């Protein structure tokens, strides 16, 4: 499937990301250069015994006494070196702090995606094939699904599974009594690597509720798309032709219809990965999930802007990459877009 044309296309898209990320950096820089009170004031905090001279020195050190465009180039130069400043809370490079928390968030995003797919694909097929009341019911549920804020789903789940049924843990990534050697940062993977099934079991039980909270609205969206695509594909000419050739109904559905209905859906599924990263800002807060989202929210409270900027840039990068992934999947799977442009 992969030919040189396709590779060239993908290459061009990746190169196209450079100005996009550059633009995002400009936006982030501009937005955060309007933060009331500059970082020096923030650094010094409540200490009142600092001299005006020292403050000026600090301002000079951070380049804050320079014009905006000079500071922008300074910012960009730092950014290229992966440096967005020192976290005021942790007194370490902000990016390092954020990257440490990234695996927790990515792990969550992948499980949320799995949840979404596992719910959406059977439900979508079922709705399209059964029609009637089943279809209306599933479509209705899906509208409800994406009308719920994810952090409220989180609290509902906590209430039902955590405090009422008491079957699942409601905060953190792992039982406090357990530890695992950090290799990948994905606890489930680390547990498997260490052969520690206790860790794997605990990590899995912790991730279920957060993953559901993020996955349910996404599932709701995918169900509808898949159902609509499937219904229009089932009415299409080539399906009728396949039926006329006397193919078994199940073969018609699985071999022909489903494949064609899934192609446009894959794109949306990939896009969800990007949305999960921003969704994590809210869901991680509810579950005390020690990921990037929760870190960022805490940093907002602590006015630790370098960390906020780092988290925003990383989320944006992931978002852009998930868009890219979605485009590539479309290119690879959809024969119609091949050879165009």
């Amino acid at each position, binding site marked *: 499937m992969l030919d040189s044309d396709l590779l060239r296309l993908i290459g061009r898209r990746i190169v196209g990301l450079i100005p996009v990320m550059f633009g*995002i950096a400009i936006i982030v820089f501009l*937005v955060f250069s309007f933060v009331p009170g500059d970082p020096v004031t923030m650094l010094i905090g409540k200490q009142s015994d600092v001299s005006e001279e020292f403050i000026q020195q600090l301002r000079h050190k951070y380049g804050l006494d320079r014009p905006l465009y000079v500071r922008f180039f300074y910012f960009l130069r730092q950014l290229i070196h992966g440096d967005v400043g020192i976290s005021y809370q942790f007194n370490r490079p902000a990016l390092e702090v954020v990257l440490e928390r990234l695996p927790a968030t990515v792990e969550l995003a992948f499980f949320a995606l799995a949840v979404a797919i596992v719910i959406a694909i059977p439900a979508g097929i079922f709705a399209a094939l059964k029609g009637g009341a089943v279809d209306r019911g599933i479509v209705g549920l899906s*509208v409800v699904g994406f009308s719920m804020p994810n952090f*409220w789903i989180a*609290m509902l789940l906590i209430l039902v599974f955590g405090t009422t049924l008491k079957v699942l843990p409601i905060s953190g990534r792992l039982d406090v009594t357990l530890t695992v050697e950090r290799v990948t940062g994905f606890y489930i993977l680390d547990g498997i690597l260490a052969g520690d099934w206790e860790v794997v079991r605990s990590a899995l039980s912790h991730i279920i509720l957060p993953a559901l909270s993020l996955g349910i*609205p996404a599932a709701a969206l995918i169900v509808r798309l898949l159902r609509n695509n499937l219904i229009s594909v089932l009415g299409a000419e080539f399906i009728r032709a396949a039926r006329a050739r006397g193919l078994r109904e199940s073969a018609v559905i699985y071999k022909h219809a489903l494949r064609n209905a899934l192609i446009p859906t894959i794109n949306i599924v990939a896009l969800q990965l990007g*949305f999960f990263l921003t969704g994590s800002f809210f869901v991680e807060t509810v579950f005390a999930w020690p990921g990037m989202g929760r870190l960022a929210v805490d940093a907002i409270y602590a006015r630790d802007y370098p960390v906020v900027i780092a988290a*925003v840039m990383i989320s944006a990068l992931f978002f852009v990459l998930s868009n890219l992934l979605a485009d590539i999947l479309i290119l690879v799977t959809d024969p119609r877009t091949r050879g165009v442009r």
Partner: protein
Amino acid sequence: MSRTLTTLREDLLRFLGGPTVSYMKRDPGAIVGGTIFLVFLMSALFAGVVAPYDPYQADLANSLQPPVGFGGSWEHPLGTDAIGRDLLSRLIYGARISLSVAAVSVTLAVLVGVSLGALSGYFGGLIDEVLMRIVDFWLSFPAVLMAISLMVVLGPGYWNVVAAMTLTSWVPFARVVRGEFLTLKERPFVLAAKAIGVGSAHIIFREALPNTFPSLIVLSTFQLARNIIYEASLSFIGIGVKPPNPSWGLMLGTGRQHILDAWWIAMFPGLAITMVVLGINLLGDSLRDALDPTIKKKLGVVEVQ
């Protein structure tokens, strides 16, 4: 100008009247959605009449009262919060915040997005180049993240939320209007009007713009639902509307701390958000089908939070 506004209003009402209404009357989704939405709208408009209590009045003696049916009394049908404020009254006043932030920001976003989209689609050239680059960046930057960043900078507050919501929701309008204008301006009926001798303003406002109304109406409904969720999300993490305002998001934020001992504080505001967003989404789906089954494609997909 006022004549233009009058005819624009007529054109708009035409899309919302007659066949659209008769289609929606036969659509159960629209009826359910419309009813829910109306209930919330009325609560918001007449909060002062409907709400049994002052939403800000603390009553420590009656704190953490459970709702009726869970050990509470009809005094406080939905219970009270940690400082004894009546939850039902706060929810009713909350509808005001939620709906007004969303409505104001969508209105502003429509004005900004439609103006920029129309100019750029109609005149093309440099404006269009610049706008398209901006749109590209906006689209590669998740709206929630943008809203969060803006709120961090602006600080919490009602009007700041409105500003952040506006800045994050004008782009889809600009995109849709630009796209439609690109094709509309080449359409023979526009050439016919030019041949008659009308100016650009007439073409933009009287000939082209009314043709974008079906898309705009549908997009506005979905954007309204989206902004309600966004406002709640921002308030939930403490960078939206300021306490003690009864924002549903804020109530959820404080309710989170009581999830183990007073579940109702978080459950009811969440339910309210879900209901009103559901109502609007149902209305939007129905409007979309009623106005034009093909505009779905032009609008693309609605994003989830």
